[in-house]
């Protein structure tokens, strides 16, 4: 079976770069560079042929970007000269894309190498693929369209469902939050819009896959997911980039609105190459008895900042945030989760697992806040760090604030090291150092892997094995 052999090929490849190869220059239709000015934003909006209200939204965000200070806790980003970046880059498409075959060969091949078309066919309800700044492919299986599910590139949704978009866009994660959310709202491009009608359960996951195709590029995709009352959806985000010289900057955003009784699972498997500075803005508003589960897997990138956030707005709302961060090599992962309990009987659970190896640094930054009046709410936070060698580090900065006497926050943190004795035990069973490390890492995150579909677990396992085999060289 060809599907199988393709998956096998990916699993067997030496590294992700081997699959994706070195970036090749490709024809770009439009590229915006230079100073981030009113003119830049107006030009972007004009190219996209946007309604007036969206242009106003962008310009307001731009003003905020100029006013807001650089967040104090951010390390690394200030070294980037944003003005040297290509802020909008639209790949040249020859015709309307209804099938993978309609895509230019270089773009199609990138997605094929990652097995995305096969995965779509086999077990997804729908897929959006974003290349640089634009959604290049977006298909929802017909049966789901008939149920009233909407899945479109964000730009198209702005035009076709303006009222629906206006009601939520920038309301879950407003531009004024900090400098990077403002920049994002001013320059957003690409991403997916998903709407699940009342009571509709989407049986298979919907996926969005993001690729940054060249260096010195900014990607600002925006995903907006609305789950109406009593609906269910699992959304999976994958990120990848081939190797190139120079940095690229990713400042994406996800806004989720889970209405009464809805369930949303949102899974991210981020495996950017080592020259992507990755900044994420992710937040969900969760109404009465609704449930949102975040799984945030950060494997690749040079530096990643990501803190999926849940606002428990309605009574009985629940959330779980699972964060896995691997820093293998001289890289930084600044990750965590944020939860606000604003209504009675709400509950939250944060599970963070970080792995530091070969000089990698992990920082956990978390916030749990229970507001006065959020009676009988409960929050649990557990932060586990695994440090594989002397050169690597892990820090945790949890912040818990409980203003409601009948509510409780439980916090646990552990730090584990790979001891010589543990490694020797595995060695003595014929398991080499690199294999032992990946075994221990996979065991360490097994609780989180259990919540993922089989295909993704297999790919993730392989990615982690590759991480350690590349550096290995011992024995």
């Amino acid at each position: 079976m060809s599907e199988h052999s393709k998956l096998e090929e990916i699993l067997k490849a030496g590294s992700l770069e081997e699959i994706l190869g070195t970036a090749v220059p490709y024809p770009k239709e439009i590229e915006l560079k230079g100073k981030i000015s009113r003119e830049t934003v107006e030009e972007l909006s004009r190219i996209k042929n946007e309604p007036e209200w969206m242009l106003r939204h962008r310009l307001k965000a731009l003003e905020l970007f100029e006013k807001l200070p650089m967040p104090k806790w951010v390390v690394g980003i200030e070294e980037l000269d944003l003005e040297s970046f290509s802020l909008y880059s639209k790949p040249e498409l020859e015709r309307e894309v209804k099938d993978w075959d309609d895509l230019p060969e270089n773009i199609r091949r990138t997605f094929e190498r990652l097995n995305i078309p096969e995965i779509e066919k086999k077990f997804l309800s729908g897929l959006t693929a974003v290349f640089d700044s634009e959604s290049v492919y977006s298909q929802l299986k017909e049966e789901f369209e008939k149920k009233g599910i909407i899945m479109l590139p964000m730009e198209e949704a702005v035009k076709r469902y303006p009222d629906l978009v206006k009601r939520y866009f920038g309301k879950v994660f407003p531009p004024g939050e900090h400098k990077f959310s403002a920049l994002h709202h001013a320059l957003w491009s690409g991403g997916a819009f998903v709407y699940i009608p009342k009571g509709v359960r989407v049986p298979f996951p919907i996926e969005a896959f993001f690729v940054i195709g060249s260096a010195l590029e900014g990607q600002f995709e925006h995903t907006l997911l609305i789950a109406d009352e009593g609906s269910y959806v699992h959304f999976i985000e994958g990120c990848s980039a081939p190797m190139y010289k120079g940095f690229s900057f990713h400042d994406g955003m996800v806004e989720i609105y889970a209405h009464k009784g809805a369930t949303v699972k949102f899974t991210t498997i981020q495996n950017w190459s080592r020259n992507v500075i990755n900044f994420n803005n992710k937040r969900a508003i969760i109404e009465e008895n609704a449930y949102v589960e975040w799984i945030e897997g950060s494997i690749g990138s040079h530096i990643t900042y990501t803190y999926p956030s849940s606002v428990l707005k309605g009574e009985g709302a629940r959330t779980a945030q699972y964060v896995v961060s691997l820093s293998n090599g001289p890289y930084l992962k600044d990750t965590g989760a944020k939860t606000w309990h604003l209504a009675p009987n709400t509950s939250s659970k944060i599970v963070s697992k970080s792995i530091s190896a070969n000089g990698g640094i992990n920082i956990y930054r978390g916030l749990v806040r229970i507001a006065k009046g959020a009676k009988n709410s409960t929050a649990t936070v557990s932060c586990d760090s695994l440090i594989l060698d002397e050169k690597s580090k892990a820090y945790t900065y949890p912040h818990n604030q409980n203003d409601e006497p009948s509510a409780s926050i439980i916090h646990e943190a552990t730090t584990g090291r790979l001891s010589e004795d543990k490694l020797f035990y595995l060695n003595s069973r014929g398991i080499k150092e690199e294999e032992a490390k990946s075994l221990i890492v996979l065991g360490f995150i097994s609780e989180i892997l259990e919540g993922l579909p089989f295909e993704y677990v297999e790919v993730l396992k392989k990615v982690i094995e590759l991480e350690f085999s590349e550096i290995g060289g011992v024995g």
Partner: protein
Amino acid sequence: MLKVDNLRVKVEDKEILKGISLTVDKGELHVVMGPNGSGKSTLALTIAGHPRYQVIDGRILFEGEDITNLPPEERAKRGIFLSFQHPIEVEGVKVIQFLQRVLKNLKGLDEIQAYELIFNAVQELGLDESMLARFLNVGFSGGERKKLEMLQAYLVKPKLLILDEPDSGVDVDSLKMIASVINKLHEEGTSVLLITHYGRILEHLKPNRVHVIKEGKIVASDGVELVKMIEEKGFAAVEEL
């Protein structure tokens, strides 16, 4: 099979083994006894290749080849298996997955072949199947850990089985099971080097030779009658020989 030749070993600048020589021929069962801190475990861990134990002099030969500087996984592949005194825990890794990986690495078995072998062995040894679904040694009692070590040895069928105090911290029933696995492997031709402090496991075994280590040196080597003497008079009596 195994020849330890004038072995001197130090740990963090402290010399523990001060010239040990010992030969275990094919199919033989040797016992090493000695008081606490005499260097028994050091001998076991050095033969298996623990990096903390530095060989400063002498050699270890296995099937005629010098393995003194081989990494532990290489020694395992050549047929040396150490049953640990303190087996380690690995959170999140199920016993079944671990055993499958061990059998893949040491025996070249695929997952299905390994699975069948493991299930048959569990039944044969009268172990509790539910153990396979638990995480490796996590929350295991002392006896359960030792039994799992024996299950591994039984699956791997090594050429040389080294046992580091398999009888410490186990109840009578576990002790019988452990002894029966040693006997089974021994009957199938495995050479055995058994390290024990108490000697109570020896009631169930028929050793070819018994060595007594004290302060890093072998002070006596003899037949099984040596065990009886130690049991009656203690290790102090050995020195007077």
